């Protein structure tokens, strides 16, 4: 089954499948989207990740055509669609609450886009069958929407969006209404279908795990702007700012001073909270001794050991078993916020025990903002 996007000029080098050039939007004097530049790579799944009100949904609605941008232009498959209504943009979209037409059968829902394009009866039926097979709901044509489970409804919504072979698929919190187990299964399934069809997709989500699991690239948004775009491992391991670091997971933030070079791209730092504690960070940019920096260390990058020289002295406050790991909550003297460390195995430390924390050189990142 080969379902290639048939948007005009898509297979030529006409440009990115979706390209936003300085697109901005205000609602009632509040700028919800600052001028935004974004270009998608053909066939990729890009996640727009951010807390509610960060402008991710507005970005999606601008691309879909439900809102008109105040400035800038939007190109889809090399064509300027800025002034076009949603029905002329050749997109597919899946909504959070499925948004299936309750007065139509499953088959009629999936066929709706084809019907709007006045596709022939035989072709329409063939295409509906093909799409239902794609989402593994063969033979569901005559079912009514309210007879389906949440997961099935979501799959039908996907089939309906894909039936017209859109050049780009927009996913607005597509799995938000599903419970945890089903959501995880659907993440992989949706990802699998997207890869198989090679359809360029934009996923809007506030769930960092979903963004990291499903996408080729993640664009982290806050306050109407994109803070960082990169591969999931990149934004997770090399966040540029404290916000990105903390939004993608737990991060321990330390203020420190550079004490000297320590190998290629490596520098020694001393923590403000505990000047005797030394650590190493990697940084592609050159650092000067005496320079003040902010470090972020992921809890799973911290290792617990005896409180020897050079380690960060801390006291164990609590241990929580989280299923796949143990989460330690610690207090480091001089550090106001608690420190978190995750370990695969339970460490031989009791509550209130004094421990030493350390990390491998690659485990700490220098953030651009100050602590």
């Amino acid at each position, binding site marked *: 089954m080969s379902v290639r996007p048939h948007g005009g000029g898509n297979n030529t080098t006409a440009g990115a499948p979706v390209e936003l050039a300085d697109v901005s939007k205000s609602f009632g004097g509040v700028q919800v989207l600052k001028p935004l530049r974004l270009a998608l790579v053909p066939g990729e799944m890009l996640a727009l990740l951010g807390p509610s009100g960060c402008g991710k949904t507005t970005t999606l609605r601008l691309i879909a055509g439900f809102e008109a941008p105040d400035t800038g232009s939007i190109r889809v498959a090399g064509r300027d669609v800025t002034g076009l209504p949603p029905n002329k943009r050749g997109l597919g979209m899946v909504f959070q609450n499925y948004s299936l037409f309750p007065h139509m059968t499953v088959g009629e829902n999936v066929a*709706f886009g084809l019907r709007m394009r006045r596709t022939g009866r035989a072709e329409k039926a063939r295409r509906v069958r093909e799409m239902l097979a794609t989402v593994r709901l063969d033979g569901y044509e005559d079912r009514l929407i309210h007879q389906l489970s949440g997961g099935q409804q979501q799959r039908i919504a996907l089939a309906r969006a894909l039936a017209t072979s859109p050049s780009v698929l927009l996913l607005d919190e597509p799995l938000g209404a599903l419970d945890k187990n089903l959501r995880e299964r659907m993440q992989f399934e949706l990802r699998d279908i997207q890869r198989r069809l090679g359809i360029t997709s934009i996923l809007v989500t506030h769930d960092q795990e979903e963004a990291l699991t499903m996408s080729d690239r993640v664009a982290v948004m806050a306050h109407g702007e994109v803070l960082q775009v990169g591969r999931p491992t990149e934004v997770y391991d090399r966040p540029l700012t404290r916000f990105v670091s903390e939004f993608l997971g737990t991060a321990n933030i330390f203020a420190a001073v550079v004490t000297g070079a320590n190998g290629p791209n490596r520098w020694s730092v001393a923590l403000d909270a505990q000047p005797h504690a030394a650590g190493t960070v990697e940084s592609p940019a050159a650092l000067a001794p005496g320079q003040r920096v902010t470090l972020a260390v992921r809890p799973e990058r911290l290792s617990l050991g005896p409180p020897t020289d050079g380690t960060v002295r801390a006291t164990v406050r609590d241990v929580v078993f989280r299923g796949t790991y143990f989460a330690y909550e610690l207090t480091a003297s001089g550090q106001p916020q608690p420190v978190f460390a995750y370990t695969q195995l339970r460490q031989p430390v009791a509550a209130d025990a004094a421990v030493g924390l350390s990390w491998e050189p690659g485990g700490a990142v220098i953030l651009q903002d100050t602590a």
Partner: protein
Amino acid sequence: MRRVRPYRLARPSWCVPVIAYLLVFFVIPLIANLLRSRPVDAAIGGGPFFYYVKLLTDPYYAGVLLETTKVALITTFVCLLVGYPVAYFMVRFAGRWNALIVFCVVAPLLTSIIMRTFGWRVLLARRGVLNAWLLDWGLITRPFELADQPIAVYIGLVHVLVPFMVLSINAVLQGIDVQLEDSARVLGAGRLRTFWHVTLPLSVDGIATGCILVFVLTNGSFLTMLLLGGGRITTLSLLIYQQFSTTQDVGFAAAMGNVLMLVALLGFLLQFRLLRRRGVKP
């Protein structure tokens, strides 16, 4: 052992006063009316259905029945045409102005029908406001007689009854997720086709409720016909009024009332069936 009953705010017994009230002031009079519609005077002959036969077979009364239906159908249709856009606007675009629009829509119902109807007479009269404006703007050269015309009756009826249409459709439109319309748009449907394929079919319940309400209420109203029609529109309800007030033919009036009642019941039965058929909704 004491059985613990689940907590309920209301108990069935709370309905007793209402049922008693309806029994005395609604059901019993209806039965009385049914009995009254039989000819008292045995001398007239023709059996217990004499008045009904007369109503349906006499060309004049059959004509009145036909006219009643025509007036009700036209009023319903105009109310639908006028009311649907208003209801749609209220739900989709009005936002915080919604309360004001609701007030404006309901306002006609808050004024007395006599006041309202005479208001229309003032506006529509030969030397009334409307004619004065039309003359001033040079749109007409001679004033029209608009009062005492069928058009005045329709204007009056639509004015009173359109709120029922607007509120019925409004209630159903509120329940239609905007995202359904958004979905249709992305799938390639323009505004009109989105309305035709998604919004309209999903609001059929509201349309049906509104239409049946307006239809039944039109059948029952006679003051508008009496005060604005100038005798040019005679409907069954107006005839009942006349039978009571002028000819005092109580039996015949009762029979006509029962026919009107039957029409109303059929309307509600239709609505009930319609809702039942579309019943299960997520």
